[in-house]
Structures are given as structure tokens and as C-alpha cells.
């Protein structure tokens, strides 16, 4: 069972599901399938044809996935769902949201309520962002 925090028309919602997408790596992925990227992946315009994309964080302190997300949103203008998976942590979710993630898959040991509470600790920001409002 995984815990997802997902953006919906009503705002962010917690859900629990066993039904995870059948992620494919860029090597064995085909158009229309869910695509799983490692944080060191290079951007490719073909990714626009994925049904959904996930970025796998090896550690919550690894910021590469944040830049990769921004590139997906900014450079190839990907507008589909973007999942953060792997070692993600309550205290970095607000950055992830602002880098364009809209589905956050929490590891088991993390607390969904705390995560939800800390999605937007700041009313205003000093920078522009690619947040998917």
C-alpha cells in the first residue's frame, strides 16, 4: 500500500492505493506508457508522449530531481502528471510542488498528515516557479 498526496481540483488529497502505474525505464518504455526517470536522466522531447512521468529520488537531500522536474515543465513543456517517488521527505515537499510535481508518493515511514500540513508553509515566494496551479 502506498500513500499518495495528489493535487486535485479541490486541492491536495491523501489517498492510499495498491494500484501503482507500471513504471517503465526510458530504455523499455513506449509511447503512451508511464515513464520512470532517475534523477540524472537527460531530457528528451519524446517524454511528452508518456502517459505519466515519475522521478525517483535516491535521497531527500538530492536536488537533481528538482532541476529535472523544472526542465520537464519548462524546456519540453510537459503538462501531464509528475510523480515524486523514492526517498522523499515531509520537509522538501513544498519545494517539489514548486518545481512542478503534482503527485507525491510518501515512503512508509513518513507521516501523511505532517506532509499535508507542510505542503505550503509559505504564502509568498521570492521566485517565479513552474508550480502547476
Amino acid at each position: 500500500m502506498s500513500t499518495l498526496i495528489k493535487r486535485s481540483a479541490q486541492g491536495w488529497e491523501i489517498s492510499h492505493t495498491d494500484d501503482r502505474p507500471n513504471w517503465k525505464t526510458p530504455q523499455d518504455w513506449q509511447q503512451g506508457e508511464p515513464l520512470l526517470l532517475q534523477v540524472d536522466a537527460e531530457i528528451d522531447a519524446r517524454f511528452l508522449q508518456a502517459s505519466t512521468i515519475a522521478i525517483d529520488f535516491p535521497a531527500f537531500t538530492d536536488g537533481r530531481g528538482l532541476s529535472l522536474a523544472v526542465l520537464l515543465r519548462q524546456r519540453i513543456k510537459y503538462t501531464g502528471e509528475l510523480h515524486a517517488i523514492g526517498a522523499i521527505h515531509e520537509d522538501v515537499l513544498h519545494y517539489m510542488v514548486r518545481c512542478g510535481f503534482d503527485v507525491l508518493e510518501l515512503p512508509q515511514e513518513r507521516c501523511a498528515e505532517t506532509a499535508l500540513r507542510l505542503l505550503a508553509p509559505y504564502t509568498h515566494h521570492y521566485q517565479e516557479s513552474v508550480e502547476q496551479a
Partner: protein
Amino acid sequence: MYQYDNFDREFVAERVAHYRDQTQRYLAGQLSEAEFLQLRLRNGLYIQRLAPMLRVAVPYGTLSATQLRMLAQISRRYDRGYGHLSTRQNMQFNWPEIADVPDILHDLASVEMHAIQTSGSCIRNVTTDEFSGAAADELVDPRPYCEIMRQWSTNHPEFDWLPRKFKIAVTGAANDRAAIAVHDIGIRAYKNADDAVVFDIFVGGGLGRTPVLGTAIYSGLPVKHLLTYLESIMRVYNRYGRRDNKYKARIKILVRAMGAEAFKARVEQDWVDIKGGPSTLSDAQVADMVAAFAPPARVTSAAASIDLDALRLEHPTFSHWLHHNVGPHQQANLTVVTLSTKMTGVPPGDVSDEQMDAVAQWAEDHSGGEIRISHEQNFVLPHVPRNALFELWEKARRLDLATANAGLLTNMICCPGGDYCSLANAKSIPVAEAIQRRFDDYDYVHDLGDLDLNISGCMNACGHHHVGNIGILGVDKKGQEFYQISLGGHSGHSGHAASLGQIVGPSFARAEVCDVLAIILNTFVDFRLEGESFLSCFNRIGIAPFKERVYVDAD
């Protein structure tokens, strides 16, 4: 100086609340030691050898009198009545309790201050010339651009989890007092032929165990493109900087591995997408920020005009102080004053609450309410009227802040070292003190002329030993404290290009350091031509004569 608007106030209040929440979760056992470490570092809290250390951000080294009074109060309330001026123009407290830190941050927020990103692998406090907005040799006041970068880098969603810490320094003067050559990004601001402000951008400089001078990758960047260009640099670094080895994780290693040309090409390739995009600065934004740094309105002195020459004759120590610690201002009736903390017997950069309160008062009386912290760990009053100098000197003398040694041997830069820092190989403060005691004759030290002596307790080089004309580095030799000496380093502030020191040879025991230093200084005195500084002399004669004498005499 810059004043917070509602946006800044709200943001900092929310940051305090966020950090309080993090602290409570940690104390309640919901965050592990390793997780909390990452979070507290991004709020300036280290756990040191003896106690936690809180590093408060002093953006580009600029403080108001009200802010300095608050720092004095914090040092009394939560610490032991003193603070430490760091080489990155910040203020450090050595004895706070972890549980008190949210309250300290709350107090700081009440005077528009914070500790955001003063440590951790993120963009740190932007540093600059401590004389900015005042120095006679200034081309462009760097502070508005520093503040623009402070805001941009604060909680940047993409760049708070970098491979390693990231330091940006800016200079806008003919003499680079910000040491931009040894920063991850160094920025030189000046006006081009059309009188527009532009920037030269250097990347990949740094100290630490692999000292490197930065390489220019852009000349004449227009102001409006500043943030987008920085974003592209940060993105290339964030994506490709090494994360497997913390000693190879700084941008300098990436730039060297890729080659500066290839690095620049990557940056430009990324920049294509965002140049002119949403982070582009508008003329109005820049003009507003420049206006926020207008010179203080009221800088006059009640004192009648005084005869400085007569006072100099009467008070030789005042004359020395004028000579070394008082510099030219953009306005002829004003001066820039350095209040040296380098009094023998006091750890360099340590200031008491009483001194902080006093400096705040003098700033109000004589400097338009403004204070600066220099990377040489001194206070600076940037706008002091000429006819207030004697009065200020008399006040400063009473509080041990009038040592006439700015620019001289005894005004050494010194990191906290083994007395406080858990990373240290050796103590640095007792070495500084021994040197001050040994070379305590003003005439001798004055005769040596301009001389930067910098001391670091380990390879991390917080004391900037690589860019000291004489650098002293604490090393560990089979569990013993030893000191390696290097010569000829320079941070770029006085007409010479920045340079890295060359190691003289095998290191010395602590008891030998002063003797070796005496040999080095005597060698300089013997070889120098009339009027030649230590650095010029070294550049002319090289390291060989020093080596010869140091090791012959030491045998």
C-alpha cells in the same frame, strides 16, 4: 539601507514558524538526527565541539544600529554576552540551546534578520565589499544587486539541495575587497561605455583543500539578465556537480573536470530557454532596489570643525589610527572607519555585548545609523564625518575598538579553530594571540606596511589562509597540532591580482610559529626595496630566499 516590506516580514515570520515546527518534531523524536541536521543547517545551527553554534545572516555585511542592539541583547539573553564576526560577514553565537533557537529567530525577525541558509548545501549569504556605498574607489554600489540575489536565493525551490555549499561574492570597486576570485561565483559590477551597469561573471573559485581562482565565463552581462544567467549556472551545477564525495562536490571541481569552455557552453545552452523569461529583472524592479540603498539622509556632526593636523601632533596614537583605519569616502566631508576587533588577548572577531551596544550608538551618532561587518572580522562605520573622527576615536579607545592596525600584520583573519570548531586540526586563536604578543611594537608593525596574515584551523580554510600574504594552516601530524606556512597569497584588494599562497615547506610545531614568522619578516625587511610591500617584494624575489632562511635557521 534596505527595509523589509510586508512580503519580507511575512516570509521571515513563516520561516520561523516552519523551523519551530521542525525543532518540535525533532525534540519529539519524529525527525532523526540525520534529518534534523539537514534542516537545522539550513537555518544556521551547527552542533560544535562544545555546544551548538548559531550563525546569523548579516546580508552583505550590512547592519542597522537597531539590528546590532538586538544582536547584543541576544548574546546576553541566550549566550554568554559575546558574538563572533565571521569571515563571511555574519555573526555567530557559540553557546545557544537548541530549544531556544526558535525564540532567537523570532527575536531576529523582529528586527528584519534571520539565519536562513547560513549553512548547509545551499546558496549562502551573498557577501560584498564592506565599504560599499561609501568607498571612494567604488564604480557601482553592489548592495542593490546583493539584495536582489538574497531574495532570489532565499528558499529557491530548485537550489536548496545542491551538491555542496555555494558562495557568491560581488565587488563594485576598483579594489576588490570581496575576494571574488575565490568564490563559487564571483561578480564584478561596473559601468559600460553606455553608462549602464553590467557584470563580469566568474565561476569555480574557492579555497578549501583544492584552492582555485575563478574563471570568467561572461563579460558585460546586462543587469536584467542577472538572475536567469545565475539560474542556468546553478542548474548545471545542481545536475552535474559530484555528489559521491564531498571533497569533490564544489563547483570548482565540476568546472575543472568539464573545462571552463565546456561549462560555459552548457550554461548558455540552458540559458537559451529562460533568458528573457519570468525571472528577468525589469528596469522598475532594479530602480526600486537601487533607491532602497540611497545614502543615509542625516550624516552630519554636531562637533565644530576640528583641526585634525593639530590633534594628530598631539596624539600620536590617534594619528596612527587615522592613517590605518580611516579611509576615503565618496563625499569629501565623510570618511570610512574600521573599528578593529584585533586587540591582543581577544580572539579575532569576538565582540562583547557592551561593544555591540556601543558601536550601535556610535553608528547613530556618527554614521547615519549604519554598520558593516568586514570579511576581516572588523566593524566598519561607513559614513563618519571628518570632524567626528576624534570624538569617535576617543570613544572607541575606551572600548578596545581603536587598535590602529587595519591592513597590518596584527589585523589577522583567524577562524575559530580548535577551541570551538569540531572540524579543526589545530587551534588557531592561541596562534593569533602569540603573534600579536610577539609583534606588539607599533613602529615595527607599521614599518612592515600592508600585510595580510590569515589563519585557518584546517583545510576548510574559513580563515582564508590561501589568500593571506602569509597564510597559516593547522595540520594534524600523528595527532599533534602542526602549522603549515604559505607565502604570497592575495585576495585581490590592493591593486594586485588575486593569487594563492605557495607553501614554504614542512610544517612547524606551535611553539616555533612565531620564530619562523620573525625569520620571514626579517627576510622581507632585508630584501625589500624602498616602499615595497611584502607582497610586491615576494612577487619580485619569489619563495626561495624565504625557504632558505627558514629552514637553515630552523635546523
